[in-house]
């Protein structure tokens, strides 16, 4: 049975370098499908959707709030053509109630071990409007390996350079951070995959460069160290979120191929400065993630923070404005206080101010957000800084004999489009 999995496009943030990575959720979901289902994958960010497909069933996988409205449009188009449509994924769960209006079915929760039932129901003409597995997390042993064979690889390539592959070694998060919905989505319990299963999957990935998308690797030190130890022989190079701030862990991470990490920078403290220095001491790059618009930030605080970033030798910085995604504490706080003025989910891209900040107008915060990007990348562009990080990893790969030269056939292509020089 043919099953088309669609990943809706979204508008990228204006003025910022965008690299389109192969999405993870859809291929993880595809791994959970029964053998008799033949999945095909279309990422609308890099290719057009064939609405006149011969697929019997269509799945729309959504990760971001900025995808949901487009996802609903896509579903409407397919349903006009008589196709049954099911929604799933993270932002389906965040926007579930609205999404039920646009699909024949909505799947909530994690899909492993559940798809036999869904597809059997579909085949029998008894598809349920809601499959609610929010309360029943599956056995973590059932996860993966993701169906990366579904990717059209040439579409995730910029001028011959293959984009990183996404991978996850755990689910859930024991933390419940102020702006984050992960604990609602994946549960408040950290659920590491068995290390041998993770390693097996890593070995199947035909890409030396990865993005380990786990919410935070710093949740169980022993597991983290065991994972890194087992990764060393693979000689992969990878990006991840925070790593435990412990010399033993950082040393193992570096040996396991840590390329650079995303590290939140909230203040101008020596702690942050030292934290970043410690990563660098182990040869690990740092992309600072800076959230603007928190209630403790005045205009001066934001400007001081940006000056600080220029002093602490970050390799990259990514600025976002506080965004009240549903099912987060910040959403509840701002909702109760009547401070959310924009409920258009297309604007929930972490680059547009949708609420009234405490110490300035929304317009002023928007200006400061633009100022942050412009100021940080004034002397060296984002693209140049990324190139520096790429050079760093290429040199390491050359030393280890794992370097794969760029694909000359795709040198004039960028994510499927011709490069205009």
């Amino acid at each position, binding site marked *: 049975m043919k099953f088309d999995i669609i990943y809706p496009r979204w508008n990228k943030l204006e003025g910022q370098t965008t690299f389109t990575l192969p999405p993870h959720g859809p291929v993880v979901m595809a791994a959970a499908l029964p053998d008799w289902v033949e999945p095909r994958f279309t990422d609308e960010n890099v290719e057009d959707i064939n609405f006149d497909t011969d697929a019997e069933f269509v799945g729309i996988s959504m990760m971001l709030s900025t995808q949901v409205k487009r996802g609903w449009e896509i579903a409407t188009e397919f349903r006009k053509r008589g196709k049954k449509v099911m929604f799933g994924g993270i932002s389906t769960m965040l926007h*579930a109630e609205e999404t039920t209006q646009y699909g024949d079915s909505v799947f909530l929760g994690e899909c492993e071990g559940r798809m036999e039932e869904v597809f059997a129901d579909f085949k029998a003409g008894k598809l349920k409007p809601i499959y609610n597995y929010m309360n029943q997390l599956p056995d973590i042993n059932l996860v993966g390996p993701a169906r990366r064979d579904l990717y059209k690889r040439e579409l995730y390539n910029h001028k011959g350079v293959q984009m990183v592959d996404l991978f996850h070694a755990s689910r859930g998060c024991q933390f419940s951070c102020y702006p984050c919905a992960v604990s609602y989505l994946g549960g408040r319990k950290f659920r590491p995959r068995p290390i041998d299963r993770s390693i097996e999957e890593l070995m199947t990935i035909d890409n030396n460069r990865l993005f380990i998308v786990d919410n935070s690797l710093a949740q169980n030190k022993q597991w983290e160290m065991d994972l890194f130890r087992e990764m060393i022989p693979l000689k992969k190079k990878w990006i991840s979120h925070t790593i435990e701030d412990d010399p033993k862990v950082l040393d193992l991470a570096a040996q396991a191929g840590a390329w650079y990490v995303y590290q939140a920078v*909230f203040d101008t403290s020596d702690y942050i400065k030292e934290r970043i220095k410690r990563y660098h001491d182990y040869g690990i790059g740092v992309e600072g993630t800076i959230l603007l618009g*928190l209630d403790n930030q005045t205009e001066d605080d934001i400007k001081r923070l940006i000056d600080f970033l220029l002093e602490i030798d970050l390799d990259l910085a990514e600025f976002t404005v506080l965004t009240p995604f549903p*099912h987060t*504490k910040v959403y509840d*706080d701002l909702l109760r*206080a009547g401070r959310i003025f924009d409920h258009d989910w297309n604007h929930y891209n972490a680059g547009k101010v949708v609420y009234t900040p405490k110490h300035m107008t929304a317009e002023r915060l928007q200006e400061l957000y633009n100022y942050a990007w412009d100021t940080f990348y004034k002397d060296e562009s984002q693209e140049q800084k990324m190139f520096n990080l790429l050079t760093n990893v290429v040199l390491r790969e050359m030393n280890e004999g794992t370097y794969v030269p760029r694909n000359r056939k795709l040198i004039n292509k960028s994510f499927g489009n011709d490069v205009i020089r």
Partner: protein
Amino acid sequence: MKVSEKYFDQIFEYRGEWDLLSKCGLRIVETASKTYVIVTELYQDNPGSSVTTVAFSLCNQICEAFSLDKSRVEYVECAPSTNSKLSFYDSQFYRVTFNGTQPVYHQIEDLQLEINS
């Protein structure tokens, strides 16, 4: 983000969105004219939907569980201080009224004063 027990007398289990098992802190205070139902968000100790997400349903579930006379109920949401690095609020209390099923929030400056008055 552990919530102090000073905000509630008991833990109330409720059905959250999509029937998620959810928990909040609960204090019920009877006065001569009103029954104050004060629900407190527990954050990391709430495995399901927040009290704000399901305000209308939660209010009904509590009234049903404790056989409360709804016409006397003053429903209050407490967003407790959690000393989180990123949350900058002191404890806040909101009187919640409902426009149909939609909650409408009115901040209360001093809940104790209001209850005593």
